């Protein structure tokens, strides 16, 4: 595997910096192994694995910068990359928003690497696929799934003495199981840093159970419903809220966080007071990267506290313009939940809809953060505290801002799509039409 130790990476970065002639130079090295396996119709379609290492050099003259990359680590190759990036920088136009490079930083030691993930090989992936396919083979079902894993490192350093090193790993597994006659479909997805937590068979069994339970869905009228969103479904909408909390867009008047008359809605209570959203690179269930997208140390940050907007993303440039400290985008968000289980939520629901996941979500109006999309792979009608029957999929038109003002109950946060999100019970969720899709 193309994995450099901290010392090896530092040595190469220092070597590259010694060749540099630009005003400022930044070097990043990243490498590792990625592998995948894809299957459909109960048979494997494609599988692959690759090892790469990439050195990227960013050279800056004044406010003109240029980037060049390469895949070889010998001295001659490294010198070529530096020469190329300096040549590109000299020809580049000035970037008026350029911010000088950072000096030494104090990065946290995040635990986002698993040796178990690094140790897997093609036979592990083949077995995971076969375990998954076996579940569907034994039940007159058809499975289609995808497993992708990564284990590697990234290191960066610059001519002002900044240096950081991090090893990371990730695993993403998803599987769709459909009944042979195509009248039922289920889905399950998991993401981890440690592949030891993945059991492809168990995940496929959940998907298979949903496929069988969703056969012959009935149509019910679209309209406003109480919904119970499994964590995957809740994450589908809440990640969009988190993505849109940029201060510059808000200051410029083109965000749901823009204030009428100018400025932002920072500090305003926009959501139910039970809404608390934060990020923490040291969280054991959602370990993050040690640094953010601009190279600043990742820190525990509260985004929403008791329903009020507590922080927004400030790029280094925008923070400088506004005279505040920069606030970086987190790797993932943690949405504090409640203590009601999914089963309890269903038991306490008189009339509602249980949603496994949403699909094809697109922004309709950035002003109100209104999104449209559809339910998919397991949607069920709840009456008098019980799941009564599967229902046809719905199209929704809903804003996560409105949704977070209509919370009925929340459960324990679970990892979903790189975030920690609870199952949620929401009233008055807007379904606008029916879909025949299975």
């Amino acid at each position: 595997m193309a994995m450099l130790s901290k010392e090896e990476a530092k040595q190469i970065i220092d070597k590259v910096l010694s060749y540099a002639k630009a005003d400022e130079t930044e070097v990043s090295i990243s490498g590792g192994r990625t592998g995948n396996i894809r299957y459909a119709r109960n048979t494997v379609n494609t599988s692959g694995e690759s090892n790469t290492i990439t050195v990227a050099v960013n050279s800056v003259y004044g406010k003109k910068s240029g980037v060049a990359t390469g895949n070889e680590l010998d001295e001659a190759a490294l010198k070529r990359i530096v020469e190329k990036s300096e040549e590109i920088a000299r020809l580049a136009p000035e970037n008026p928003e350029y911010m000088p490079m950072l000096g030494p930083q104090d990065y946290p030691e995040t635990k986002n690497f698993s040796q178990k993930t690094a140790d897997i090989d093609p036979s592990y992936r083949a077995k995971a696929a076969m375990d998954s396919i076996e579940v569907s083979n034994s039940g007159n079902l058809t499975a289609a799934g995808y497993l992708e894993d990564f284990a590697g490192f990234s290191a960066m350093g610059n001519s002002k003495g900044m240096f950081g090193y991090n090893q990371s790993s990730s695993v993403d597994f998803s599987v769709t199981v459909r009944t042979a006659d195509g009248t039922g479909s289920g889905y399950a997805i998991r993401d981890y840093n440690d592949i030891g937590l993945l059991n492809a068979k168990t995940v496929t069994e959940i998907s298979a159970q949903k496929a069988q339970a969703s056969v012959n869905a009935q149509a019910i009228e679209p309209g406003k419903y109480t919904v119970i969103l499994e964590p995957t479904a809740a994450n589908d909408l809440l990640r969009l809220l988190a993505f849109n909390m940029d201060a510059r867009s808000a200051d410029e008047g083109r965000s749901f966080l823009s204030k009428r008359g100018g400025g932002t809605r920072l500090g305003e209570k926009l959501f139910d007071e039970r809404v608390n959203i934060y990020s923490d690179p040291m969280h054991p269930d959602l370990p993050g990267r040690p640094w953010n997208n601009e190279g600043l140390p990742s820190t525990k940050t509260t985004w929403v506290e008791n329903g009020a907007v507590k922080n927004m993303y400030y790029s280094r440039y925008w923070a400088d313009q506004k005279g505040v400290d920069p606030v970086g985008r987190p790797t993932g968000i943690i949405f504090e939940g409640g203590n009601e289980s999914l089963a309890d939520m269903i038991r306490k629901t008189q009339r509602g809809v249980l949603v496994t996941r949403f699909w094809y979500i697109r922004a309709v109006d950035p002003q109100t953060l209104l999104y449209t999309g559809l339910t998919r792979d397991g949607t069920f009608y709840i009456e008098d505290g019980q799941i009564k029957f599967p229902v046809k999929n719905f199209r929704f038109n809903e804003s996560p801002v409105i949704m977070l003002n209509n919370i009925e109950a929340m459960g324990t946060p679970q990892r979903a799509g790189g975030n920690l999100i609870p199952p949620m019970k929401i009233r008055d969720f807007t379904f606008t039409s029916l879909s025949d899709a299975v």
Partner: protein
Amino acid sequence: MKRRDFIHLSGLGMGALMTPGFLLTGNPVSAAQLLNPGLENAEKKALADIALNAAKSQGATYTDVRIGRYLNQFLFTREKNVQNIANTESFGVGIRVIEEGTWGFSATNDVSPDGIKKCAETAVAIAKANSIMQKEPVVLAPVQGAGEVSWETPISKNPFEIPVAEKIDLLLSVNAAAMENGATFVNSNLFMVNEQKYFASSDGSYIDQNIHRIWPTFNVTAVNQSEGKFRSRQALSAPMGMGYEYLDGLASEKIEGPAGLISYRNSYDMVEDAVAAAKHAKEKLTAKSVTPGKYDLVLDPDHLGLTIHESVGHPLELDRVLGYEANYAGTSFATLDKWKAGDFKYGSDLVNIVADKTQANSLGLTAYDDEGVKCKEWDLIRDGVLVNYQAIRDQANIINEAESHGCCYADSWDSVQFQRMPNVSLKPGKDKLSVQEMIKGVDKGIYIVGRGSYSIDQQRYNFQFGGQLFYEIKDGEIVGMLEDVAYQSNTQEFWNSCVQICDKDDYKLFGTFFDGKGQPSQVSAVSHGSSTTRFNGVNVINTGRQI
């Protein structure tokens, strides 16, 4: 699959025109490197023969080799600033083989005789390993070897030969024009792609192709700060399979539409469109909010293209129909039994939809696909009836076709080629009919222009589309601009409500530059031609909300 050298374009503040920076792959290079001619064909043939021979000697019954050089130049600006200039090059070889009825694929950026030989051997080894799990041996439709042939997109101005400074000047003048006409913010971008692809196969083909695509676009935003309201209008350009000549802004290629709208066929005036966009964005701030209900929709080609793409293009991809995309993009309502019945009414009698990779100036235009099949045109929907799908060599037998449709594509040398959407276009009406005449016949309707929000289910039944501009039609006249408009329908119901199609004088191409499919995901670019078309009694919702 190889992990890509992603170039992250951070901090671009692209707003609604969120740039797919993650799609920009390859190594950063200087602009001058984009004009480097690369390897001679004789060298590529010699390297390809090494792969063909190595795979054969390992037992492969079929081999194809793609030596690819993929060049991109993407320019990003906002207001008076240049945000980024990205020049990238990606060069390598992908080798695909069949051994024991099973595909194997391997790719390398070591384009040396030894690197290629090893890569071919790996591809065969992968095929052998995968054959243990094989349940459906590959059946390839026959292809006549093409011999040694060359083809290139017929462009008159190579975008990479135009100095970067000139292109930046154009974008900054677009921004200035928008700001002078009332825009609060403007982002403008220019995407230029050149694929230099050499394909060789054990069928006796050595095909060299040089393909160009271009997409100038912008997003103009007007803000009313006192009311806390903002609205945007995107460019009405189309990404095209053309060179820099697309930006000549020829008057002969303009189409003057209703409400003073100008649209552009094969030549685009970016500054003129930016002026109009700024005025439109401001007008949208005070436009009337739509009353929900049933309306007759008059859909401009700049809008209808995306509806065609989502509701006809994707559901008729045979791999979706068969279930290969079930875990990601989904399957299709257009199942094989509907096609076999021979009378499935996809649309009204007026609806004739063709697939091709041969249309001039289109994004799909190429002489041969990525498995060496000569490209052609074929019918998907004839007189409203579903008659065919999109199929490649290993699928043709499933729908009783003697040959592939020639729509196999890979987005890079290190991606395995698979079935991708060709151009899918609605044929113009046979009777003489202009947009203005069409609108005269509408009592209660909405004229929709431009690409907006779009969403469709995983089997392509239920969709919802927005647009850039909406005009209310009352008693045959446009009476003003509307806002908060989206229409919802069901694919079959929608196409059966098609009652009128304008003639060929109104026909133009729409395009999408970064269409995603597959796991790991690959992109492709595809055009959709149409004339303005009327659909009766479509459900329109109001998307306005208070937060």
